[in-house]
């Protein structure tokens, strides 16, 4: 079956090898900065466990972001009045630098002894708006006649949501999710390194994950662990890109309106 690929997808596909090349050069550059260190290299299982912990944190944040983003986007696009009310509010909220509130978020979650929640919450906030705005754009891009056809043919409620709206916004949802995960990977290092936000905190306060491994390895003089962690991180992102995102982007093209 012949499928059409949008310029964004083609650009994305072309950009990925270039990005990996830049990363590889970057790693060699960084490695040359570290003096030889006798600190032991973390075993692969340790790096893998750190990656798994971070991945689970991102996944929890992503699921929460999707659960909130879909109704928010639908609400904001239900007529001109709703758009007037919600879009400026969303614009302001997404412009607020969430990391500025991180110490407060940690303090709140520490009270309940649930510091993992602080990291997931910050990741959630950073992922949310990518999905919300992609979905709003996606709903706006659905031809008006599709909604008219749905009304004429009495497609309402759950049937309309499941059989018309959700498939119609699938391409935007995939694109938004891709951006959300990219944002999540960016923020995860800060989100796991909690000790800088806790008065008198040490690395023992950090959450176990690839972010905290990356942040703490240079400080402990283990350049090799840092490089292993970077390679693991880049490898996981590359695998996710090829195995999940590229396939999803390709699949979502079927759902795109011409």
């Amino acid at each position, binding site marked *: 079956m012949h499928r059409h690929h949008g310029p964004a997808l083609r650009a994305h596909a072309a950009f990925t090898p270039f990005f990996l090349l830049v990363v590889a050069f970057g790693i060699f550059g960084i490695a040359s900065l570290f003096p030889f260190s006798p600190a032991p290299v973390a075993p692969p299982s340790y790096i893998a466990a750190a990656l798994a912990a971070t991945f689970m944190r991102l996944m929890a944040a992503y699921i929460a972001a999707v659960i909130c983003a879909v109704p928010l986007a639908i609400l904001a696009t239900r007529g001109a009045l709703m758009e007037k009310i919600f879009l400026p509010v969303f614009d302001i909220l997404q412009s607020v630098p969430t990391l500025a509130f991180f110490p407060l978020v940690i303090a709140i979650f520490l009270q309940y002894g649930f510091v993992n929640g602080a990291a997931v919450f910050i990741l959630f906030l950073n992922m949310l708006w990518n999905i919300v705005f992609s979905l709003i754009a996606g709903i706006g891009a659905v031809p008006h006649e*599709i909604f008219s056809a749905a009304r004429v043919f009495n497609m309402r409620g759950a049937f309309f949501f499941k059989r018309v709206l959700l*498939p119609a916004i699938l391409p935007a949802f995939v694109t938004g999710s891709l951006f959300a995960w990219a944002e999540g990977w960016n923020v995860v290092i800060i989100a796991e390194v909690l000790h800088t936000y806790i008065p008198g905190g040490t690395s023992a306060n950090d959450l176990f994950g690839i972010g905290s491994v990356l942040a703490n390895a240079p400080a402990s003089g283990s350049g090799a662990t840092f490089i292993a962690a970077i390679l693991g991180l880049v490898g996981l992102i590359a695998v996710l890109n090829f195995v999940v995102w590229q396939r999803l982007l390709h699949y979502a093209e079927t759902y795109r309106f011409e």
Partner: protein
Amino acid sequence: MRKHTDSNDIIAFEAVSKAYGTGDAALKDASLSVERGSFTCIIGPSGGGKSTALKIIAGLEEPTSGTVMKPDHVSMVFQSGALMPWLTAGENAALPLEAQGMAADKAAREARKWLRMLGLRGLEGKLPRELSGGERQRVGIARALAVNPAMLLLDEPFAALDPKTTDDLHRDIVDIWKETGKTIVMVSHSIEEAVALSTRILLMKDHVVRKTFDIDLPHPHRAHAVAFSREVAHIRKEFFK
């Protein structure tokens, strides 16, 4: 809004106005009627109110004032086809039936019957992007007929098609009208198309029906070239008046 009562008219507008939030009026005290079983075409310049009238008939818009009599169960063919790109031709045609609560396999059988009637045998499994413009419109017509509506509305369904495909579809739509006896209301920009297909033409200008023309030619109308040309010239004169 008054609903359809016992009359030979299936649609009746009495002093219907429609104004949008911006203050722009699409209809101003417009009155019109459509006879049951007729093939009525609404023509007129852009902004004259014909699309708004069709949307009110379809239930997509509510009038600001006035009385509208229309059947509840109408169906529509859209200019772009308005097909779901992720569904096959068969699934698209079956979707309204499933929305009515029909089981998926029964809906698929019913949809297949209409697709075959419209000459799409073997194309049931194709996605809209794998079909030509004419085939996509045929799927849209099959979808509209599958729900067995009281009336079929056509919103400039041939505007984006090439002349050959348009001619083929003109023949098909007239055949469907004759076979099913359904009332058809079509909006068109083309006077020739309106004269070729319909039994009555409503000319909408300045937000009201300016003139009604009864086309009394045996089908196919174009075969009666002199009478056809005379009708077109007559309507054109009123159109540009």
